[in-house]
């Protein structure tokens, strides 16, 4: 246990991630890296209180872990043979090099992240491995966050680790011609973690660990390692600008509050400032990307004093741009909502009705709720109540169900 009674892994979370990445890249073996990282951290907990914290804690840990790794390799003859062949053909100079004791320890977490988010692994596994090995969550925490039994998650992680090992997925940042596609996968995983956590807000499930914070933390690591990559900057900005509204998203009774009705004084201004600054940075690159455009839309919302005073014309133009980049039904839906604000409820409703043949939209509550909103503005209360009722049936979280049901109720009662 650490100083605050936390497990060792939690205290050394940052160091743990870096050590693991360093050792995985060096030995090409995630299992071994995991084992010796844990041993090194334990050694630190045992030694440091007596001998004092070393001047370069990470270098101390890296050296200790590397020594333990070499010990284990010597002990395990079969493994040694395997590693010998491994060493023979993959970057021998780097593997043979000792861990630098007193200089800069390389941050190999980017390499590890690309390995965890390799397209040869399925998306669930990519997400699990990223949370386990980059974010440093325990298997039990990840299982809880994704509402699956711990044994299922453990098996998923073991299989993923095994595939990385057996098919030799490299711990490497892909070359320029592949980087674009591969980085998209990494960003997708991070955003998926974010939306999973975001959707859960209002669950009042205290044991559920905060995936939103984890996703932002992952994006910060990525941003530190790829500061000039506008998509990373855009994604981090988008998540900050979205999460800034967290305190206002659910009211005291656990009912979701729409963007329009949120108490904007509750929004986190420092997150908004940081997000807006990053958005400007992300957009300064010549070719726009969908993350940065979404961040720009979020920034317009966050910086407006009210829904009415939002620059809806600009929001709509950005949605046009986003639709050109990613022509998905969800973007079309959000664009229709922006049109409703900019041009009026009838124009908005027309655009929404034009999407009625998109099953991916009509199966979810957002489209029905948006229709309800515009119908209510047009004073077509019966139709509005019906749309909200349908939306409440399709919503997933208690907070949203409660909100949508209350809307349906409101327009059912005459007057």
């Amino acid at each position: 246990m650490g100083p605050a009674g936390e497990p060792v892994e939690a205290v050394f979370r940052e160091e743990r991630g870096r050590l693991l990445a360093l050792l995985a890249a060096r030995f090409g073996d995630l299992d071994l890296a995991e084992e010796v990282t844990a041993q090194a951290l334990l050694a630190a907990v045992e030694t440091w209180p007596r001998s004092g914290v070393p001047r370069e804690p990470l270098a101390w840990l890296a050296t200790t872990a590397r020594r333990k790794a070499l010990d284990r390799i010597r002990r395990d003859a079969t493994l040694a043979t395997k590693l010998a062949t491994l060493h023979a053909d993959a970057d021998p100079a780097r593997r043979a090099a000792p861990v630098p004791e007193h200089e800069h320890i390389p941050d190999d977490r980017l390499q590890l992240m690309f390995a965890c988010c390799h397209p040869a692994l399925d998306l669930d596994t990519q997400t699990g491995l990223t949370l386990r090995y980059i974010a440093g969550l325990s298997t039990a925490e990840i299982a809880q966050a994704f509402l699956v039994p711990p044994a299922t998650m453990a098996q998923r992680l073991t299989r993923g680790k095994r595939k990385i090992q057996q098919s030799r997925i490299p711990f490497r940042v892909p070359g320029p011609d592949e980087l674009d596609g591969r980085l998209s996968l990494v960003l997708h995983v991070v955003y998926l973690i974010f939306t999973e956590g975001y959707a859960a807000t209002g669950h009042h499930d205290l044991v559920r660990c905060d995936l939103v914070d984890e996703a932002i933390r992952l994006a910060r690591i990525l941003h530190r390692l790829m500061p000039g990559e506008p998509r990373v900057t855009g994604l981090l900005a988008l998540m900050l600008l979205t999460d800034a509204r967290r305190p206002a998203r659910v009211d005291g009774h656990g009912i979701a509050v729409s963007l329009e009705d949120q108490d904007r004084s509750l929004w986190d201004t420092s997150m908004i400032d940081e997000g807006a600054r990053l958005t400007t940075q992300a957009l300064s690159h010549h070719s726009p990307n969908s993350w940065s455009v979404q961040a720009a839309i979020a920034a317009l919302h966050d910086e407006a004093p009210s829904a009415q005073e939002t620059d809806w014309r600009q929001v709509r133009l950005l949605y046009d741009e986003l639709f050109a980049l990613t022509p998905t039904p969800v973007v079309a839906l959000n664009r229709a909502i922006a049109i409703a604000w900019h041009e009026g409820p009838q124009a908005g409703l027309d655009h929404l009705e034009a999407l009625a043949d998109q099953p991916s939209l009509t199966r979810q509550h957002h489209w029905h709720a948006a229709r309800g909103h515009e119908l209510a503005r047009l004073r077509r209360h019966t139709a509005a109540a019906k749309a909200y009722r349908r939306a409440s049936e399709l919503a997933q979280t208690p907070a949203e169900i409660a909100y949508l049901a209350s809307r349906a109720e409101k327009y059912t009662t005459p007057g």
Partner: protein
Amino acid sequence: MKYMLLIMGFREGEGMPPPPSSGAPSVEEFMHYQRELGQAGVNVDSGLLQSFEDATQVQVNDAGERLVTNGPFAESREYLGGYQIIDVPDLDAALDWAARCPGAKYGRVEVRPLAEF
């Protein structure tokens, strides 16, 4: 690390999905691919198979009796058209070679690491 690239083709016919791209890779395309593999020094072994219609199935039961039947396994939608074994540093390199394989355009290339004993 050795990987086998299994060059899979789609069977055409009733109830079979259409292939991603019609036609079949030409012998010239495979020759060219072979030359590239050779120049890169990663070629271990390869073989193209005769038509799956010429296949014969063999099974041996508990009593040691041989059961021989004509043709490919009726249920399968795909057939193995050939294989290529390469020796490359990692999966990314193997995937690159798989993508360049002429079979990838007309069917599917399955990349499998060879077990080491």
